């Protein structure tokens, strides 16, 4: 009986830890639902998150929109690697925020992005 209770407690602690870390990294973003999407790649991407209010996070760090360009430049690994740039944007986010970020990325030599979605 005692080992079983031990295992159950360990499982609960595992699920609690995973759900907490997922909540922290995903910043309460509801991603868009689409009919068709490609499978996610296995490589670790450079992650840009935008919530429904247009607030931006680069690699989990909160960044104000007017400091975005300097923030992108501060990530030196970002420009000199082949890592994919992944945009995790809230479904309700107005496009002007996305457009602004994409324009800055384009000016900094990033010409391709992956957008996170879920299939219907």
């Amino acid at each position: 009986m005692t080992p079983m209770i031990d295992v159950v407690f360990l499982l609960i602690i595992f699920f609690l830890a995973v759900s907490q870390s997922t909540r922290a990294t995903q910043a309460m973003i509801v991603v868009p639902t689409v009919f068709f999407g490609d499978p996610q790649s296995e490589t670790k991407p450079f992650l840009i998150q935008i919530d429904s209010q247009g607030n931006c996070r680069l690699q989990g760090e909160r960044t104000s929109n007017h400091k975005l360009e300097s923030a992108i430049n501060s990530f030196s690994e970002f420009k000199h690697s082949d890592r994919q740039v992944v945009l995790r944007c809230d479904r309700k986010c107005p496009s002007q925020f996305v457009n602004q970020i994409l324009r800055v990325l384009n000016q900094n030599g990033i010409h391709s992005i992956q957008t996170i979605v879920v299939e219907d």
Partner: protein
Amino acid sequence: MKLKASSRQNAQSLGMPLVGMIDVVFLLLIYFLVMSAWQQPEKQLTAVIQSAAIQTEAVTDLEPSVIKMNSREGSVVFQYGTRNTKELFTLKEWIQKTQFKDNGIQVHVGPDIEFELVTQVISACRAIGFQKVIYVPITD
């Protein structure tokens, strides 16, 4: 977490409801298992970013098809060639009839459009067979 015999005896002597506690623990375990199973797997959409300035310079004989998305009076209007529609379904029908899919397709996105609608247009283009979908952000 392994309880020693002495501590178990203490728990029993204090009247700790061990059976009730195990029930709660099992319920918690089932809750987390179900919640993790319900999460939908995430997918991705690939798009090429192209600024409006570059787009006007790079005019070739084989220009890609262009979809323009603009917000007018609270609703989104899709412009494809000379035709306009407010229905995504109608837009899908039009782009399905496009013959030269190898040239790619440009999606010009104006301000004040929900991002989900933009992704649905990009997804439709990819599903129809356009290998290259170019996102052109219109910031003005």
